[in-house]
């Protein structure tokens, strides 16, 4: 045997640059729209300009007369397929039939009415203008509270109250808590509708091979396997004849954690015309037809003692569902209820959820999905209580935190928090920010008449979705690790990423376990024909669940490597580390590549061992994980204009063990940017008639790089026992923590004027009006 060098370099915990970035930043990655196939046809979708209307007639003959137009399908052609699936269930949930194309009625602006199939995408687009639809416009309702008023237009005529479900959760003795309270603070808080705005819009390519009776769907999705199951059902196709591929996916933020009409529709079209078909969503369609996020009106009441003890919380949550249930629509507000207590010890809680239909595009999971709304609510209410009793917002939090010795902590909403050290995170954030000096600075600023604010949010979140009994479609994840005959390593993961960087983090895990180099590992994902069934990437689960599956697959593989190593070294006492197997008696070694070659050559198999070095593991997590942290934001409001300046942004996050600090910080940066978007800029505005008037990026303001302040990141590290890696997840933390910190800060800045609460987004005119009023008062 040749002498082999043991690798001592480790990768986990290091700032490794992302393996996927070179192709992404040089334009050589393959997205759905980059796929070209011989004979490919193109689809364009005619969409309703009305929020509510009866379809009286559709005339397609003018379009069909054009030689480039191959087919036009309308609602009556697709009666045999669908519906668009809803995966969530709640007792008594009303589920409107969500047909793939509108039948006799449209329910929101953008509702698909017809699909044109043409030789090229230009003709397809032109043909939309040649289709005539006679609509009889009907009254629409776009505001969830107005939809609940008696006499409001019924979104679905069969349910005139517009209520899709109600949901009640209660723990402790809420009435007693409120009766015993020294103070009760009430506030209506809106978490406005947001448009997820992934950089890559959605897109679908469908390819039907009639000879093989098999369909391949390429879709920009976060969940290729779930899509395969659900689209196969919707099309009545055996699931083993459908392959779903998620090629490069340019962001999703939850908006691609879904099965949309278009995936089913393109599958149908491909099978009808016998040619590959492509549909690429325009930005305008993306705004109108891809799910929106948030959309809450929350009525909170918090009860407390003068000493700062929180006694209880009441919430009436009105969820704007939109016109239909997409995959998880009705489930999202229930997550808000679960996380309502935040990281505080009080036990008395009552939540009433009303899911309301409106003539708008459905809401569903958007980065944070239910938790930003909950965190915004509790963090605002805690601040309001503190203001009411004249206590420092940091102090009231320290007083009410769940304590480190109370874990695992059973929450009144039925969760079991794994680990936490909330006070330490807040102390750290206060230290980084220089909290006490900042308060001094604030005093001075106020004397000068400046509007200077300091805001804290201490959040807890629920991640690593999740144990299967608690999730609609299974909460485990799969991984396959394969050492190829040459010693190179391939990882297959069911957590198909869309920008998160699993190709790097999972490779780091492999490197340390197998002693290979980062360039020797390829992580593959997103193709149901290649990867064992998996669940997907969402809910900050990829590394905590998918990464753990990789870890367990590696453990099994290492056992096998040792067996082959022992056979090759002719020893019964070997160990494997740093990429070599060593005989503990003689010191002789054999490298992983040699072992791999021998395992496939299979000339001498260890007893009871299969050839090859492949290991597959399906890991079921025993619990969620519960990351936490503290963000502190310093703002100053321009007294003359109401404009907000973020002067400092301090983020201390605890996501358990960190595999790659660079990626963790990247997730925090991106999350905070989206949180700032909600806090300061973004709002999907529907007018009274259900027209989306922020229908383009010219009007809907997502934060640009120049609008995001420097973010001072730091962290504490409290591992979770839920998985052997100790990791919790960080994909949504920044978004969840950010908006309450910003709003608390701006409310603090305006508090000398008597301001107690402001709803997002904190646009300058709104603040200017408050300042004007304060000046007069």
């Amino acid at each position: 045997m040749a002498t082999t060098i043991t690798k001592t370099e480790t990768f986990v915990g290091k700032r490794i640059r992302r393996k996927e970035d070179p192709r992404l930043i040089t334009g050589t990655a393959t997205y759905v729209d980059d796929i070209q196939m011989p004979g490919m046809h193109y689809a364009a979708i005619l969409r309703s300009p009305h929020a509510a209307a009866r379809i009286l007639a559709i005339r397609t003959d003018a379009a069909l007369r054009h030689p480039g137009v191959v087919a036009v399908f309308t609602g009556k052609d697709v009666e045999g397929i669908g519906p668009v699936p809803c995966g969530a269930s709640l007792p008594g949930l009303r589920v409107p039939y969500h047909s793939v194309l509108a039948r006799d009625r449209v329910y929101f602006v953008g509702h698909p009415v017809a699909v044109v199939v043409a030789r090229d995408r230009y003709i397809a687009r032109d043909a939309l203008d040649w289709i005539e639809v006679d609509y009889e416009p009907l009254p629409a309702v776009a505001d969830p509270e107005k939809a609940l008023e008696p006499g409001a237009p019924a979104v679905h005529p069969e349910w005139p109250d517009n209520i899709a479900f109600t949901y009640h959760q209660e723990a402790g003795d809420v009435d007693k808590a409120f009766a015993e309270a020294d103070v009760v603070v009430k506030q209506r808080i809106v978490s406005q509708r947001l448009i997820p705005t992934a950089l890559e819009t959605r897109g679908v390519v469908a390819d039907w091979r009639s000879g093989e009776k098999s369909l391949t769907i390429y879709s920009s999705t976060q969940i290729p396997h779930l899509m395969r199951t659900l689209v196969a059902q919707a099309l009545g196709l055996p699931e083993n004849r459908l392959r779903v591929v998620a090629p490069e996916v340019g962001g999703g933020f939850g908006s691609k954690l879904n099965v949309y009409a278009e995936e089913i529709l393109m599958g149908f079209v491909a099978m009808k015309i016998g040619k590959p078909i492509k549909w690429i969503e325009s930005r305008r369609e993306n705004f109108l037809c891809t799910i929106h996020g948030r959309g809450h009106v929350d009525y909170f009441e918090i009860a407390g003692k003068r000493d700062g003890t929180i006694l209880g919380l009441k919430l009436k949550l009105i969820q704007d569902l939109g016109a239909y249930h997409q995959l998880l629509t009705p489930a999202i507000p229930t997550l808000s209820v679960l996380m309502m207590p935040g990281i505080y010890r009080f036990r008395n809680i009552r939540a009433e959820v009303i899911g309301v239909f409106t003539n708008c595009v459905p809401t569903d999971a958007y980065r944070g999905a239910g938790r930003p709304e909950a965190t915004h609510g509790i963090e605002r209410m805690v601040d309001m209580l503190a203001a009411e009793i004249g206590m420092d917002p940091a102090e009231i939090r320290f007083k009410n935190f769940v304590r480190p010795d109370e874990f695992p902590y059973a929450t009144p909403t039925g969760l079991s928090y794994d680990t936490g050290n909330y006070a330490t995170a807040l102390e750290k954030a206060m230290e980084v920010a220089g909290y006490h000096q900042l308060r001094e600075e604030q005093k001075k600023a106020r004397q000068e008449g400046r509007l200077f604010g300091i805001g804290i949010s201490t959040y807890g979140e629920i991640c690593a979705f999740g144990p299967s009994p608690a999730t609609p479609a299974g909460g485990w994840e799969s991984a396959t690790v394969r050492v190829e005959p040459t010693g190179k390593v391939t990882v297959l993961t069911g957590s198909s990423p869309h920008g998160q960087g699993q190709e790097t983090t999972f490779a780091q895990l492999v490197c340390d376990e197998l002693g290979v180099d980062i360039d020797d590992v390829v992580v593959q994902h997103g193709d149901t024909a290649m990867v064992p069934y998996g669940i997907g990437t969402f809910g900050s689960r990829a590394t905590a669940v998918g990464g753990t599956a990789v870890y367990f697959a590696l453990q099994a593989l290492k056992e096998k490597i040792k067996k082959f190593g022992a056979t090759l070294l002719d020893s019964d006492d070997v160990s494997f580390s740093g990429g070599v197997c060593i005989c503990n008696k003689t010191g002789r070694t054999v490298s992983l590549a040699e072992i791999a070659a021998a395992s496939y050559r299979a000339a001498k198999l260890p007893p009871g061992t299969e050839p090859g070095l492949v290991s597959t593991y399906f890991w079921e997590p025993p619990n969620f994980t519960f990351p936490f942290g503290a963000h502190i934001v310093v703002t100053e409001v321009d007294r003359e204009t109401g404009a907000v300046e973020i002067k400092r942004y301090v983020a201390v996050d605890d996501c358990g063990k960190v595999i790659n600090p660079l990626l963790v910080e990247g997730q925090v940066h991106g999350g905070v940017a989206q949180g700032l978007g909600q806090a300061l800029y973004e709002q999907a505005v529907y007018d009274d008639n259900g027209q989306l008037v922020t229908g383009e990026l010219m009007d809907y303001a997502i934060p640009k790089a120049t609008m995001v302040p420097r973010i001072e990141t730091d962290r504490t590290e409290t591992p979770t026992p839920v998985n052997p890696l100790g990791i919790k997840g960080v994909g949504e933390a920044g978004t969840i923590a950010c908006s309450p910190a910003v709003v608390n800060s701006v409310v603090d800045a305006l508090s000398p004027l008597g301001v107690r609460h402001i709803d997002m987004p904190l646009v300058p005119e709104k603040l200017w009006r408050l300042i004007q009023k304060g000046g007069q008062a």
Partner: protein
Amino acid sequence: MIPQNFTYQAPKTLEEALALLADGTAKPLAGGMSLIPLMKLRLAAPERIVDLGRIPGLNYIREEDGKIRIGAMTTHYEIETSPLLRARCPLLATTAAHIGDMQVRNVGTIGGSLAHADPAADYPAALLALEAEVRLVRAGGERTLPIRDFFVDVFTTALEPGEIVREVVVPVEAPGTGTSYQKVAHPASGFAVVGIAARVRRGDGKIALARLGVTGLASKPFRADAAEKRLEGTDGAETDLRAAAAAVTEGVEANSDLYASAEYRAHLARVYAVRGLRSALQAA
């Protein structure tokens, strides 16, 4: 986002272009930063496009007889970074730096911006404060207009069918002139919610010249004459600036949209007029 079919023509000379445009049925194309988005949304559907981009000699910034001439096809970026403008007419260069983002500035042109006449475009404020002139040409003729006669209303200018912007002429600043462009940018589009170009000169300790160009506030950009008059002859004290700024919105019907009501826009215009004048005076 696919435009309707159109015929594309790319003449190599100005004469050829003017001939192609003469009947008024074609649209000139410059940087395409405004025209192409409209076409993609099918809000504009010209049947014929005449691309001015292949015509040599429309892209320049040069000084002649105490004036600076800027060709219609000069990009925002070239104006922003022109050493000549930075030294001799800095207001225009600093204003250009406020337009959109880097990509837009690299491609969009001053001629296109003026012809498009978006009521929230940045250049008009500066050009009004500079009392610029625009030279217009059409097949067989040309004319020069003072900038304030060029803007008519929303998206509407004095350009006749078949006529194009040939060049923009701005003065070389006299010593002692201070200028400033102050803008509230819309967080989504980047366009001016309000934009104020201020230009002042002192003489004998008093304000000898005051010019204020206003964009974004109303349906067309305008010179705030009343404000200018109120300021000229004063000491330029803070109270003078405030009094002048108050006049900026007098009698003006302010625009309103989702982001800023008419009332708030008018307020912003007054606040930014003070800020603009203050910073122009500091630079004077």
